């Protein structure tokens, strides 16, 4: 299995807050070492590795994860708690899952 973590640099050059949060969670749980490749999606550079991966997979949010299984099949995770649960076998706190659902499902915006 090969895991790519795509994180964003915003158009003003600052790091994406959500990406930093996710990275911190991975670090705190000791699972950052499970990430094989970190790709930067730099909004100032459409040809940065992360932006190219986003375009290739049709993803318009960050962070996201690309998981390539040994048989070559790829899965994309844009929701961190699903990635944590299905790939890292780790369950997040329910309120963290709820917070992420809200930020990732735009139709819940005016709930």
């Amino acid at each position: 299995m090969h895991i790519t973590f795509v994180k964003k640099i915003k158009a003003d050059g600052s790091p994406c807050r959500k990406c930093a949060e996710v990275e911190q969670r991975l670090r705190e749980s000791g699972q950052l070492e499970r990430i094989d490749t970190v790709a930067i999606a730099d909004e100032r550079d459409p040809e940065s590795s992360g932006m190219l991966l986003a375009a290739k997979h049709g993803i318009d949010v960050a962070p996201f994860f690309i998981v390539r299984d040994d048989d070559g099949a790829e899965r994309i995770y844009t929701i961190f708690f699903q990635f944590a649960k299905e790939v890292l076998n780790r369950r997040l706190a329910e309120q963290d899952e709820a917070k992420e659902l809200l930020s990732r499902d735009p139709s819940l915006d005016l709930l």
Partner: protein
Amino acid sequence: MAIARADVARLASEYAAKHPREILRLALENVENIAISFSGADDIVLIDMASRIRTGVQVFSLDTGRLHPETYKFLELVRERYDIRFEAMFPDHAAVEKLVREKGMYSFFVDGHHECCGIRKVMPLRRKLATLDAWITGQRRDQSPGTRLAIEVIEEDKSFGTDEKPLLKFNPLAHWTSAQVWEYIRDYEVPYNELHARGYVSIGCEPCTRAVLPNQHERAGRWWWEEETKKECGLHAGNRTKP
């Protein structure tokens, strides 16, 4: 459940332009374990339409503990007026206590509404939806052009459903405009939340909702202080290329 996942896309297309009443009928006549999510605002039209199809429809509201007094009065009026099975869903008290203990009563003004809404709305919603096969919402595309343009009248809910326990989501008002909703309210003399008469269009929790000015979009009445952060997760390619 009489509607298979494989039929969802076909039905969404077939019902895309039909009257909300027909979409509700499809939902209520084909899915037994289904409920309407009622926010206490103009989605009252769903309850009115559903009650004309059958009695005893299951309705739930998310009582965050921070709603306007007018909304509580309206929820009670609706509960008494319509022959429905009404349920209020409350947040987990331990999670609310922890949030307030650590960040106070107005954390959303500092670090955004997602944490508070997650605890007060999404967690109870998730708990309720875990008991259902389908839910009905008042979501409309015109409510937020930035976030709701993609909603279909019928869709599989991938946020709250799973492969093991799929969940259907009916949005009978998806293609209606606010004007059409209010035309129905007037034509059928449907009761409404008195906050609407005071300029409130979208109604949520009291601290996070405000009246809007004429011609101002209803999104402007919610979380107005965090316009920038709501775009935080998007990937926005600029025009710059590598030199």
